């Protein structure tokens, strides 16, 4: 047992010297930041309401045509400033002087199709923003017109909060952050094993009074420890940013189980292929396929993390049983495989 610990410590020291962990963390930070960029994009495009609500942007809208229109009330409800013009030339002058963000021409309400006209500035960015902000009043006006024709649209009064940010964070970011350490851990195990094999240091180690299983076990323990630290750091950082993660302990245990499973698989791959490049390649493919296969499991590891993190009452520690069984099987099988493969 003492040999085991000194081996694990040796691995951890090697890691610290290589500064690999710094890189690993940097990469995960990048993943997280990228997702915030994509998130920004998604929010801008799919959830314009949230921008209106958050930023409190107010538009100056010039109105031509029907000055009694319900649309004007709807604009004012959203705190946009409305100016009614009777003369197109004056409206145009105001628009060109930069005093208006948009001009709408509203025909009289009628029993028929209302053909509104919207004039936007030709600059792409501004036009997109203005149109996004006008989307909600326009939709409301459309529903108003539908009601005028005796056609009712249900579920209009649900308010709720913009959900896409939240959904993205809990169903994509947090699971990625929790499982990426597992991927890195496996990659580290392969590097470490194949380096020893190629430098022939494995044989030297084996001549010392430690068994092959102690050596591999120590490497896996070291990678699990590093992975666990990363997951804990992420949960802590998320908390600092105001995103609460429920069931944090259950999630951490799940992460450790997954890290251990992936690390064991990596060990097997590296023992079969021996050279680093091929092992890494096959390992990446295996992980890719396995993770996509989990999509058909319900709850999938991804969904399980997402639901645990939001405090879904339908999931809990019980769901971890499957992973415990899988890990147990792998631990039971691996020693036989390693013995056979390292005999040569």
């Amino acid at each position, binding site marked *: 047992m003492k040999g085991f610990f000194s081996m694990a410590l040796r691995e951890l020291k090697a890691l610290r010297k*290589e500064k690999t962990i710094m*890189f*690993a963390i940097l*990469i995960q*930070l*990048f993943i*997280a930041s*990228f997702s915030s*960029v*994509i998130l*920004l*994009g998604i929010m801008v495009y799919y959830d314009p309401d949230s921008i209106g609500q958050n930023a409190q942007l107010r538009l100056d809208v010039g109105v*031509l*045509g029907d000055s009694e229109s319900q649309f004007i009330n709807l604009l004012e409800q959203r705190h946009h400033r409305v100016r009614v013009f009777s003369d*197109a*030339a004056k409206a*145009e002058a105001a628009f*060109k002087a930069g005093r208006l963000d948009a*001009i709408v021409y509203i025909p009289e309400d009628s*029993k*028929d*199709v*209302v*053909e*509104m*006209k*919207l004039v*936007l500035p*030709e*600059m*792409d*960015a501004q036009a*997109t923003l203005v*149109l*996004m902000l006008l989307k909600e009043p326009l*939709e409301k006006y*459309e529903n108003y017109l539908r009601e*005028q024709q005796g056609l009712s*649209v*249900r*579920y209009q009064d*649900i*308010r*709720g*909060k913009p*959900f896409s940010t939240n*959904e993205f964070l809990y169903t994509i970011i947090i*699971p990625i952050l929790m499982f990426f350490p597992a991927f890195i851990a496996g990659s580290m195990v392969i590097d*470490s094993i194949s380096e020893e094999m190629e430098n022939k240091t494995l044989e030297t180690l084996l001549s010392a009074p430690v068994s092959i299983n102690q050596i591999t076990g120590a490497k896996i323990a070291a990678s699990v420890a590093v992975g666990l630290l990363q997951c804990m750091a992420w949960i802590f950082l998320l908390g600092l940013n105001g995103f609460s993660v429920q069931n944090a302990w259950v999630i951490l245990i799940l992460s450790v189980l997954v890290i251990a499973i992936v690390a064991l698989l990596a060990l097997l791959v590296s023992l079969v292929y021996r050279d680093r*490049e*091929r092992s890494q390649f*096959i390992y990446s*493919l*295996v992980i890719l396929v396995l993770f*996509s296969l989990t999509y058909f499991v*319900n709850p*999938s590891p991804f*969904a399980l993390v997402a*639901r645990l993190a939001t405090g879904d009452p*339908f999931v809990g520690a019980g769901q971890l049983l499957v992973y415990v069984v899988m890990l147990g099987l792998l631990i039971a099988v691996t020693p036989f495989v390693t013995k056979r493969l390292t005999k040569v």
Partner: protein
Amino acid sequence: MRLRARFGGKMIAAVLILLIAAGAVSSLVYLQGMVLAKDFYIVGVSPGAPLIFDQRFHLVPVDPSQSGVALKSGRIDVYVTGKAAFYRADDRSQHAAGAIKKYLEKKEIARIADQYPLNQAFPLRVEVNYLKAPTENMSAAAVTLADIVRAGQESNSPSNPQTSSDDNLIEDENPLAGQPPAVYVPSESDELVKQQLEVLQSSSMVPEFKAEFASNKQVIVPSLMSPPIPLAQVLLAFAYILPIFFISIFFTSGFIEEKLGRKLNILLSAPVTPLQIILGKMLPYIGYSLIIVVLITLIFRGNLLLALAIFLPVILFIFAIYLGVALQYRTYRDQTFFSLVAVTVITGYLVFPAMFVGINDLSYISPLTLAVQMFRGESFTLLQYMLSAVPMLLVFLLSITVGTRVFNEEYLMNFKPLHVKVREAIYLAMDRRHLAVSAAVFSLLFIPVVFMFELAAITLSLNLPTPVALGFLVFTCVVIEEAAKSVTVAVTIERGLVKTWASVLWLAVVSAIFFFLGEKVLLFMSLSVISESVFTNAVFAGNLLWIPLLLHCVCTTIVCLITWRFGIKSYPLALLAGSIVHGLYNLSVIGVLR
């Protein structure tokens, strides 16, 4: 040939099986519709509620009498009946309500479209028009508002050249007449509504390459308005850049293998120059990458010549960075992580600006923006092309220059710490007889590198809360810039190439001036891309240029003189001192400090 030697026999079989499995899985996922978190929201449904087919919702049948209790106890997040939905005030329930609202609204639109005639279901049509931006010259505007609206003022608007020749929606809606036609005449916009409805119902997963929300004269229906999908750029990035990454990784590992196998030593003693060795090793892989670009362009049916013009700099850029990885590398683990860092930095540089296509024209820094435009069939100017290509080519030039200079056995085989290796590389790469020229050239070549790191910093800062993020961003960018300007001078000091404080000062000023000039040329290019208007004049007119130039010189001088006085060990502290001065100035410009 290398590929075959390495991946023969059993390997091929294993890869094939795995690839087939991956293909099968992804097609199954595609058929089912991709939902990452099944059962994410818990939705209680009453007997009369509409059917909900969305795997995100975990449906729990709840009797109306029980619904209040179930909602309060947190067993369900939302309760949906045939008429309305109920929810709590906490975040979990509110988000679920938001999600179900979006889903039900879409369903309602489909129901209405199905049950009612088109003119009743979609009674509002909005025609989008664009007028020249306020800053533009008014007389240049070809179309006036009166043209667009024709709000009955035709008689008193002489500037109106054409009379309802191309407008198809005008005839039956003269508001001055104020008489809506008694019978509904199917308007031409009905066709457009039908088209938009089809798009909505097909809800295909393939993103459209849509230029903007709505093009000029396009008629939109508010409830069918679909925003452009921002993921097109990401999709393109994956299609083109991922294969290039793969190839460049083979390049790097081939390089490293020769380095370890001491085959490079044999090459070095042969009568070939380092440049020939590097290019000779790179060329086949660049060839493979070009073939991939051609194939992908043919598959997506893009313009072949344009695609090659856009992606050749990208290929060179990626290979330049991987050459750096191969040269700096020391151990296997190093290589894995260097490569990963390279992947993230490159993707950051390429994808991040491209997310802002149509929002900010600085997105032209990324070639993916051009690629998106190519696929949309839009044109771009030479200047826009240069803005994306020139920085990448500069990085390539830098990497090749440094690569050929450091290409000796001693440098390639040693195991010194990274910062020592970088300094050594700069020392080897500079022209020791013309220090000022070296400082100037390095300052210029470092600009795109600085830009890359600054983009990375922006991306990272998005993780932080806003005020902290701003501080972090200002500080990191300043440190990066100061380091780029002073590192060459610091190396000359370390190596004892300069003897007097006056020559240190001279080098520092040269370095700062060229960095500043290069940066401003880039800025000028990007500004003129943004608009050929008043903006550029403003930048170049006032004192706006002299103060920053002075600042750059002062800060670089501070860093260099401290390093000269106290030795290379003090360089980090010197850098900090220069950065603080620079940072304070930047903050005061932004208006944080007064």
